[in-house]
Each structure stands twice: as structure tokens, then as C-alpha cells.
């Protein structure tokens, strides 16, 4: 008989419940099991109505983020055994600061709108035919933005950010890091546009630099670093706007 552990899971179904409540489940602990395996065990064997998102189970699709004992975690990458010492319980809740759809499923529409707002695509003012070949980009130039391109949109950073909790219009760490991913790409010519979009209190100036976003990021994207870089850049752009009224920001080159 394997060791058992108690999971306290936040339940909420808007058809039936006035407010979320906790329900306890006993699940076995195997050393290979992650928190998500325990949720699947409950859904398959005990209560088919337990509701949560998951897909790849290898930390890349970004679906299975939840609060585990108060910390935003990818549940597919969080071992159960780490919590199983001394009869501890594991508390699983939906990601903080998001509206709850049901049980552990959060509402993402607002996050998706904010993601689009920062124009997260390569902006070019020219239109070169494909026959011209690739834009040259050295490994060093790639390294400039590579880290910010690793975001899997799991929203853990948003659940860790106190400003997201207080200010619903703040665009949030993930979207800013994504903007910076394109700004720092040597092929991109859209920095000016994005800076204009983000250089106000809803954007980068909303961040009070708590740094929690970077601490919880499962992919080492460092959104806090992106925001800091962006603030410096935006301040420089603002200064330059007095000197060169048409603005700077066009730093791309092609092959």
C-alpha cells in the first residue's frame, strides 16, 4: 500500500455554488507523480466533475498553472512527493487574480486581449520578396531577445504580480516581456509603436518592481528584467523626442 496524501482542492461551479469552497481527497503518492497526476487520479477514479485544464504534461503548452500551497505552479512540473512529508496537506486553487470559470479553470479573455495589445508580431516598414532570402541574425543578436521569446503564456507571472491584483488595466508582465521580445529582435522595426503603446501607467509605469513575476516564471523569461529594460528605453525615447521629433527606434537591418 502506497503512502497517501490529502489534497484540498478549491471547488466552484457557478450553476450550483454561491462561492468557492474546499473539498478534501485522499490520493496515493508515487515518487514519479506530479500534482497533475493526482488531479487526474481524482477525476478518473473518484469525481469526474473535477474541472481543470491540462494538455502536454511536459511544461511547454502552458495550460496547467494553478496555485499550489499559495504559489503559482505548473502542476505538471510540481512533484507531489515534495509535499508529502509529515502528513502535510496540499492545497490546490485556481491562479490568483483571474476570474474563476469553474473549480481550477480561470478566465483568460482579458489576458488574451492584453497580449494582442502590444503588437506581438514582427513589424517591418519594407516588404522584401522571399527570394531575397533570410534576414541575417547572428547568434549574438539572437541571444539579445531569446530569453523573452521563451514565454509559454502560462500566466503564473500574472498570478504572482500584486499590481495585476490591484489594477485591472495594467497590461501585465507576460505581455510586456512579449513586447520586449520583438523590440530586441534585430529584424524588427516596431519598437517606436510599441513604446508609444506601453509608456503610460497601464503599461510599464504600472510596475512597481516587486520582481515576483521573475521568481515564479517556470521558463526563466525574466519579465521583471524586460520591464526594467523597457523603462530605460522608454525614458530615453522620451528624451530623444525633444531632440529628434520623428523619434528613434528604427534599428533593424536586413540581409
Amino acid at each position, binding site marked *: 500500500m502506497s503512502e497517501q496524501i490529502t489534497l484540498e482542492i478549491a471547488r466552484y461551479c457557478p450553476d450550483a455554488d454561491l462561492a468557492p469552497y474546499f473539498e478534501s481527497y485522499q490520493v496515493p503518492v508515487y515518487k514519479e507523480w506530479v500534482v497533475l497526476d493526482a488531479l487526474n487520479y481524482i477525476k478518473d477514479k473518484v469525481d*469526474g466533475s473535477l474541472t481543470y485544464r491540462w494538455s*502536454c*504534461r511536459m*511544461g511547454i503548452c502552458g495550460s496547467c498553472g494553478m496555485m499550489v500551497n499559495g504559489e503559482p505552479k505548473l502542476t505538471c512540473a510540481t512533484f507531489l512527493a515534495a509535499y508529502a512529508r509529515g502528513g502535510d496537506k496540499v492545497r490546490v486553487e485556481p491562479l490568483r487574480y483571474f476570474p474563476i470559470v*469553474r473549480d481550477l479553470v480561470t478566465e483568460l479573455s482579458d489576458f488574451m486581449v492584453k497580449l494582442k495589445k502590444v503588437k506581438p508580431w514582427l513589424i517591418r516598414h519594407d516588404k522584401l520578396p522571399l527570394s531575397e532570402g533570410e534576414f541575417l*541574425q547572428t547568434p549574438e543578436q*539572437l541571444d539579445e531577445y531569446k530569453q523573452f521569446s521563451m514565454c509559454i503564456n502560462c500566466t503564473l507571472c500574472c498570478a504572482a504580480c500584486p499590481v495585476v491584483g490591484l489594477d485591472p488595466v495594467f497590461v501585465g508582465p507576460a505581455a510586456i516581456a512579449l513586447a520586449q521580445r520583438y523590440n530586441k529582435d534585430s529584424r524588427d522595426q516596431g519598437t517606436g509603436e510599441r513604446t508609444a503603446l506601453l509608456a503610460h501607467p497601464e503599461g510599464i509605469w504600472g510596475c512597481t518592481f516587486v520582481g515576483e513575476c521573475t521568481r515564479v516564471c517556470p521558463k526563466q523569461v525574466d519579465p521583471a528584467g524586460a520591464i526594467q529594460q523597457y523603462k530605460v528605453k522608454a525614458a530615453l525615447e522620451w528624451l530623444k523626442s525633444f531632440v529628434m521629433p520623428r523619434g528613434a527606434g528604427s534599428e533593424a537591418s536586413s540581409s
Partner: protein
Amino acid sequence: MDASSHDVLLVGGGGAGLRAAIAAAEINPKLSIAVISKVYPMRSHTVSAEGGAAGVVKADDSLEEHAYDTISGGDWLCDQDAVEAFVKEAPQELLQLERWGCPWSREKDGRIAVRAFGGMKKRRTWFAADKTGFHMLHTLFQTTLKYAPITRYDEWFVTKLLVDDGCVQGVVAIELMSGRVQAITAKAVILCTGGCGRVFPFTTNANIKNGDGMALAYRAGAPLKDMEFVQYHPTGLPFTGILITEATRAEGGYLLNKDGYRYLQDYNLGKPLDKPVLRSMELGPRDRLSQAFIKEEQKGRTIQTPYGSIVHLDLRHLGEKLINTKLPFVRELCLKYQNIDPVKELIPVRPVVHYMMGGVSTDIDGATPLSGLFAAGEVACVSINGANRLGSNSLPECLVFGARAGRAAARYAAERPAPSGSALAQARDERRRLEVQFLHKTGGSERVATIREEMQNTVEASAGIYRKKESLSSGSQKLRELQERFGNISLDDRSRTFNTELEAALELGFMLDVAESIVYCALERTESRGAHQRTDFPARNDQDFLAHSLVYRNADGSSRVEYLPVRISRWAPGERVYGDQAPEQSKESPPALPARRGS
């Protein structure tokens, strides 16, 4: 009853679906295009692809060589006209992705870098470290955001294709958030739902890979092609089934049995040299490598673990620097999920179900035989993959045939009248079915998970790496029984809000149909070719089976198989040779084709 209407509707928002949506929007900006997906598009399973995407780009390479590698790798079951179009368009598509910002790995001078891959005689695999699928998917998704004509239905689950007078006219779908069942009509529908790895118990495939599109098409009357060809990737982590990319072997990793011996040298795959040799040893094709594992297991030369027997993948000699630069995700996955560091330790691996060569039968433009229905990506079978897909051909397949299907569907939609009024009535019937069978059902005693597990074990036992008549026949009977028990299913969850148990039940229904088609086609193909190995028919039989199997669903729920000759243009069927005796490719014109079934 609500309904909405579009010109072109994509079902699935992964690599193929998003590429198709952009292609349709670019060829005809006046069209209304919609992408419907049961997950947010950036969660799609393309995200998990690791190693790379093949496309001829270097001066020492040629389209002919990429075509020959693909066709011989597919054991001559590929349609050669499709392969020729594929290798020609793949580099353009990969370049297009570069223009949209994909962070491809680079040479020192800033040009695109390429790496070796299994079964490929030249280095032609573009890569973004070992997160190629992730970067391709996010690049595509972010790029679609700038196209105004593309509407998204995120987290909507398609339950049925609307067919009227022999033409597909849209879908019925559930909005998961609200539980609303609605018709979404369209002049053309493109299925881009990916594969069906979850039909098996041990797979690299995500939880969402349930063969939805295959079953939707099959139920609507379209045939599925070559469903017996299932790819086992030779290197998955035990227990989780997490894929350890072929790029590990392309960079020089070794496969070792329990004695630390590079056992592939015993299976006609060449000699073990220190450095990787193209089309040799660890860079042989996936079917041969997975089959070699089973033979080693039979000889008692693998290592027993609680999660099946394993061999070892050794990367230690590659060094920390190379692993961190070229294979960072592999290191991350090993550390996080297996608690081992490949810089210092051996990685335990075993074959794992990875990819469906078969799928909805389409022509070279993604059109199925059913008017108004298109398909692209893993859900489809064009076929460029034949009896065994080469690693790094599936990502460019999503792009090339996604774009082709998008353009073809846009052209088709522009000439079609608006869908007929029968859609709403059909959608009402479908809503009633969902209520009667699941949400308002009384009685019933079967659990979704129980039937699913029995199905998975049945398919593995009957149609695994090696098959034979007895296993396939008993598997077929068991699946019939499971289909009946499925009718006796009872859900714990009767809510309309985000009902994932209902979704799982509908996915199980799809998977049962797909599982039956796999086992049935495997039973009918009495030869061995590529990934389809019959112990009772161990030889390839070109006389009778140089042909695609097409399985149709009959009105009474039974199936029938027909055969369609392989399209051969330039490369006559030959022997597949790997290792040091790999021949120069044959360039002679093909001989007169032998008679075969169905031709």
C-alpha cells in the same frame, strides 16, 4: 438556436490550422475566416515538437535528395508527386516563418543553421534550439493576431460536421465556457486537429490528441487512409512518455543496451563510429530503431523497470556546453521530470507512440473526397510520409499543406453559395443527442476512464510495434465490445459550465472509432512495410500492397477497406538500405507497375 457563419472554417489552431488561416486571409482578404479550437491556439500540440523542420537550403543539398530520403524512409508508400511538391515548397515556408520572426538557430555569419536528422542523407533540418515546434507555433499565433479577417473561437469543441446534399457546410460545436451548443456554418471546412496518440496507453502526445478530426471526417463519410501506420519514436522517457528528441542523436548521442553496447550495429544500420554518420546507426529511421529495441528486449538485453524495459541514451560525451546550446529543453525535461542530468548521467528511454502516418485522405491541395471538406497536418494523409515518417518532415508538412489547403479552401469558398437552411435543424438534433446520451441521461454505469484505459491497452496489445492476425482479430472484437459499453456510459458531471467530463466522453467516442480503423486496416494489410510489421507476413509485398488502404464507414457502423495505388513518378520501389552500404539514389524511370489490389 444560435448560429454564426463564415466562408472558411479551420478546426484546430496548431501549426497547420494557423498557417491555413493566414494563407486564406492573404489570398482573399474579403473572406471571413474562423479558427475554432478546443484549446487556446498556443496550447496546441505543435508546441511540443522539439527537433526541427526539414527544408533544403544548403549548397551541398538538393530537392531530389530530400525527396529520395523521404520516399525510401516511407518504404515507398509515399505519393511521389506530393513529396516533390513538399520538398520544393518546404524551404519557402520555413523562410516565410523566418520573415514572421521565428527565432531559428543561426550560423556565426547570421545565416540559418541546419542539423542532421534520422534518415536524412544531408543536413537540412532547421531548428530553434530544441523547441522548434514551440517557436513555430507562437510565431504563427502571434502573426495571426494582425489579420483582421481571422475570427477565433477559443475553447470550443466540435462534435459533428454539418453535411447537406453531399457537401460539408460547417460544424456543430460546444462553447466550453457556457455549454452552449451552436451551429457554425461555413462554405469550406479545413480539419487541422492533429493526431490520435491517446488511442495508445504510452504516447508522447498531449491529452488533447484524440483523433477528433479523423473521426469527424470518417463519420461524415470521408475515407481514412493508411491508418495501420503508427510511428513509435525510439526515445521516450519511461512513465511520462515525454519525448527526447532525435536531435540528441543527430548531435552525436549513442543508444546503449544493458551492457553499454551500441546494439543498433546488429540490425543492419551500419558501424558504430564516434561521430554521427548520416542515415546510419542512431541516425537510422524511427521504425527500424523501435523494431531493434523489441529485438533487444527479446534477447534479454534491455533493463527492466517498473514502467517497462528500457535502454540508455548517452549524451555525456557531448559536453555541457553543446547540450546547453543545442539541447537545452532535453536537459530541462530530464532534470525536471526524470531527476537526472544528461551531462553526467545516462537517460532511460523506450519506444513510445508518437505520430500517425495515416489520416483523412486528401489530394495534394488538402481536399478530401467529400465536397467542402479539407484537411492538413497530422490529421491528414496526403501522403508524403508513407509507411514511416522521417523526423523533421512533419513541421514543414503542417506549413506546406496547411498553406495549400488554406488557398484551395479560399478558392472553393469564393465560388460557393451560402450554406443551406438545414444546418440549424441538424444542430438542434445534435444538441438533443448530447442531452439524451450524456447530460440528461438516466441509468448507465460505465466510467469514461475505465473504457479509455481498456481501449488503450487493447490497441497496444493488438496493433503495437509487431502485429499478427490473432492479436488483431481479438483486438477488433474487444473494441466492438467497448463500443457497446460506451453506450452505457454515465457522467458524474451534468453541468453546462466547462464540462470536461463531457468533453472527455466525446473524445473517447472519437478514439474508439479511430482505434477500430487502425486495427481493421492492420488486419487487412497482410504484409510488412515500414511501421506496419506483421510477424505472420514478415516481407514487403509490392505485388499486392504497393497501395494505400482507404477505410470507409458503412451505414450500419461496420467498415470496409479499399486500396488505391501509390502514385509513383520518379523513384522505383527499391530496398531500404541504411548504414555504410547506403546506395546513391536511383534516378531511373520507374518500371511498369505490378498489378495490385484495388487497381
